[in-house]
């Protein structure tokens, strides 16, 4: 990656000061970086531009950009990250019951220890997911997409009662995998 230039530093400083020219430049980069996500994000795209702008402002204020790459490249990556986060939030919307209203809100700037714990946690989740059978993953993907068991049963050609039992077994397999008690993925029936 090309290192930053003096012009980059001036643009970053200008953006923080609110200089019209620097803001215009960075806004152009934000729109360019987010353009490939526009169709996917739909009506949320304009909100996303604003969110990305705020995030870049926050990161530049805390000196997160250290000049290892060009400012444009850095902005581009922050916007990509922000867009992917937004896409995932969109997908999670049907999971209303999964939201714990009493859970503490995540901090804006988690500590290094918080980050480490979070990293380990999500790595364990992903490892557990890879250990459960593919048919369980497929079934739960449909469940978490908000489909009813009637819809899933019709789609898979499985009786509703049998489907609910299968989902229950898959749930047990996931918990076992999370506990490290599963060594090989077979099927939900196995």
């Amino acid at each position, binding site marked *: 990656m090309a290192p930053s230039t003096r012009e980059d530093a001036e643009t970053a400083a200008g953006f923080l000061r609110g*200089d*019209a*020219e620097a803001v*215009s430049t960075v*806004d152009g980069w934000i*729109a*360019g*970086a*987010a*353009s*490939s*996500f*526009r169709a*996917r994000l739909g009506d949320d795209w304009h909100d996303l*531009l604003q969110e990305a702008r705020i995030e870049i402002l926050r990161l530049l204020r805390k000196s997160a950009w250290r000049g290892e790459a060009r400012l*444009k490249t850095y902005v*581009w*990556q922050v*916007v*990509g*990250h922000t*867009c*992917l*986060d937004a896409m*995932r939030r969109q*997908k*999670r919307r*049907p*999971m209303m*019951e*999964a939201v714990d209203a009493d859970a503490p809100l995540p901090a804006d700037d988690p500590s290094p220890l918080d980050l480490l714990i979070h990293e380990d946690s*999500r*790595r364990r*989740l*992903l*490892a*557990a*997911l*890879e250990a*459960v059978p*593919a048919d*369980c*993953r497929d079934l*739960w*993907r449909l*469940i*978490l997409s*908000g*489909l*009813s*068991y009637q819809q899933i049963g019709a789609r898979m050609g499985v009786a509703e009662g049998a489907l*609910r039992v299968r*989902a*229950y077994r*898959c*749930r047990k397999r*996931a*918990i076992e995998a*999370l506990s490290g008690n599963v060594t090989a*993925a077979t099927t939900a029936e196995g």
Partner: protein
Amino acid sequence: MDCTGTSERLPWLVGGGLPAAEADEVRAHLATCPRCREELAETRRAAAVFGAHVPVAVLMDLAWDRTPSAPDAALAASHLASCPECREELELARESRRLEADAQERPRAVRWNPSWLAVPASLAAGLVLGFGLWGRGPAPVTPPDPRVALLEQETSRLRGMVQALERAASTARPRINLPLFELVPPLVRRGGASQATEIAVPAGAAEIALLASSDAPAGTPASLAILGADGREVWRTDELVSGPPGGYLVTVPAEMLPAGTYSIRLQPRSGARVDYRVRVRR
């Protein structure tokens, strides 16, 4: 509703797909049953497992050709092989990166700057006086129209779209010599059901086309899944439609199918499922 009925419905309660009346019944039972509340907590943990995806930071590393840490790289590779959502996200991130590479440095636009209004009072007074002497009023200072910012934002967006279109146009070329392989159902395959269709991918081929013949009338929808030798799903689509002459055509990136044995499951919306076995050679 009893404990069994409640427990079986918890995944859909968590996933948001339980009809309202049933959800009310389940919640009423949960309010009185500590054991089922524990089951709900377990279901949420299971949902966290099944809802796990490659972290965005790792996807960004992959999109920008940075090597993630060893456990992340291995998990990501395994997960990407079976998760169309993460593959789509990775492709969008790569597309965005390509736009960055393609973006030309443009001269910066000169925009309205409110500090320009800070003209020394004496100069302003002098101008007023000067214009007054000539029998004219001062030139009006027009404040920036807020719509200008909106238009400029829209201009940036359109620039991005133009870049994407230019890139697409520059790569759109007629394709020749596309390797096409006809999938043969097990029952008619020479050598019996255990024999796999050989797919010898020519060196340098970027894509291969797979044709599954079918009697289904044109426009019949179907699902198609490609499974690795270990049964893991490599790729899947539920939006396949049979073509005018009959049959289903799929073009896949050659790199998606490394050498090995695969099962291809074709499930027409109306009709029996057909399982094909293929062996990819390089």
